[in-house]
């Protein structure tokens, strides 16, 4: 499993890339995509939707499960990755390229992890299962 150094992470398995100017790209981590299994659909929000840190803003479906994706920050959705609507499998193929949304926020989230800390957390969770 890979966790790129330049990204930030949440305990709920989202990655965040700071694009500068209060803009952030958000996706699912390698651990998340692997735990989900084959993703068959992504229910994306709409541009303009408000985001609250820790609240679900979209969900991801596998054949037998649906999982919430939690917002790492408080702000608004500025862009969604519409490619995923037709090709949800991209999340499994390359989860760091298959971003879900771009969000704008006044500040980053309060509880982000760096790659090292997140990697330890993901490993611990993987062992628990």
């Amino acid at each position, binding site marked *: 499993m890979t966790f790129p150094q330049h990204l930030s992470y949440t305990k709920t398995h989202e990655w965040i890339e700071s694009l500068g100017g209060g803009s952030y790209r958000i996706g699912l981590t390698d651990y998340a995509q692997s735990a989900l299994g*084959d993703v*068959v*659909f992504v229910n994306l929000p709409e541009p303009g939707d408000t985001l609250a840190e820790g609240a679900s803003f979209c969900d991801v*479906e596998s*054949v*037998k499960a649906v999982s919430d994706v939690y917002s790492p920050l408080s702000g608004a959705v500025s862009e969604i990755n519409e490619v995923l*609507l*037709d090709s*949800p*499998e991209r999340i499994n193929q390359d989860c760091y390229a298959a971003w879900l949304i771009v969000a704008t926020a006044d500040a980053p989230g309060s509880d982000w992890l760096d790659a090292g800390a997140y990697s330890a957390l993901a490993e611990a969770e993987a062992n628990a299962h």
Partner: protein
Amino acid sequence: MADDMNKMGAPLIFERSKPGARTQMLPPLDVPESLPDPCALRRCAPPLPELAEGEVSRHFSLLERRAFGVNNGFYPLGSCTMKYNPKLNDEMAALPGFADIHPLQPEHTVQGCLEALSRLDVILREITGMDAVSLQPAAGAQGEFTGVMMIKAYHESRGEGSIRTKMLIPDSAHGTNPASAAMNNYTVVTIPSDENGCVDINALRASAGSDTAGLMLTNPNTLGLYEPNVAELTRIVHDAGGLCYYDGANLNAIMGRARPGDMGFDAAHLNLHKTFAAPHGGGGPGGAAVCCKAFLSEYLPSPIVTNDNGAFTLDCGGSSSIGSIHAFYGNFLVCLKALCYLLSLGRDGVTLASSNAVLNANYLMRKLTAPDNAILLDGKPPRACMHEFVLSLKKLKSATGVSALDVAKGLLDEGMHPPTMYFPLIVDEALMFEPTETESRDELDAAAQKITALLNRAFTDPESLRSAPRSTPVRRPDEVKAARSPTLRYGCRTAQ
């Protein structure tokens, strides 16, 4: 030979179609033709199949051979109560005196239908310990929707509709419970289970309050355990001003032994197609009764059958009724099958049916959890269960990589319908067995042997289970492909 037939693919009925083939069903038109204006007509004819009757017959006979019913073998599908469906009941429901009755005939011409509904109503009140019944819901989930809506109407009538916004539901509940609560705009509060799989009473106590609309509970619960503190659970919710709803999916365990009304529940639904032996029809039609205490009866859906000394009428209910949930009176012919069943069993029969359902489940559980199998199964099995029990194959999976799904698929090769898989959600690698009372000891012994053999095979030949089944008309389907690029009809590739 039969097996070979079974393995052959079945063409779709559209692929068998031969334009022009038909069987003449109707006589020629005996009045002058009078058709709509051409601009009102559909532009092209629907490409429906055209076959001679013999071909239609062959087609559906092939489909029947590629299906599995209670008539074909052991069907211990937990939570579904797949008991034998007595044939008399189907025959009675097909009598022209029921099948050919229009729902809007005058009351005096449908006294037999109303009598049937009324007699079923009386028996179900007695079995549940409730005061009033509606037979309108077409299935258990619609019964839940209805019951929760009655609870909502009750709170609204007391001016508490906007305050009591939360429905308490254990984490072991069927998915229909939270979905039915959400259809009524309730916020679902999930109550965790304790280490025994029963409702965590302290968690319930902590969650119950002035915003509680009610509690939805299945008892025995979905682990097949009778909630030991059920009276206390309902008391906690009542003390907080909430009402208690009983999901009757598991009533087959307790008929004649305990009644939801006595446990403190205010409303309940029963699944006529589970407990009362109406056949499941490949997924429906079901039928449900919503039962309630007297103080909720004014909210029951309309109409309700009333009996005035043998003269039956359809009472459209007062202004407090939640209204209609069905165009007419529910799935009447399913209600009729349930009535036939209850008339046949009678007072002692229903108690005996439940007792034997519990006996069969305990007998099978004891066989499967014998000390020899301890290494295969996770956790300490309960000492006793009600009508169903849940095994966890978590330990087997970590030891062998063989999952509950693989074991279920292996059972298909053994000619047995697998138990319910991966439910309740609180048990990892769950297999949920409900043998019902209509299976013989021989059948249970044979099933126990097959299951034990499969569990052992997980160690010796795991691959054979991971690639099972092999003897069925098709092997494991690619469900990811089905969901990612859905093809949901003939002749049209649907992209999402």
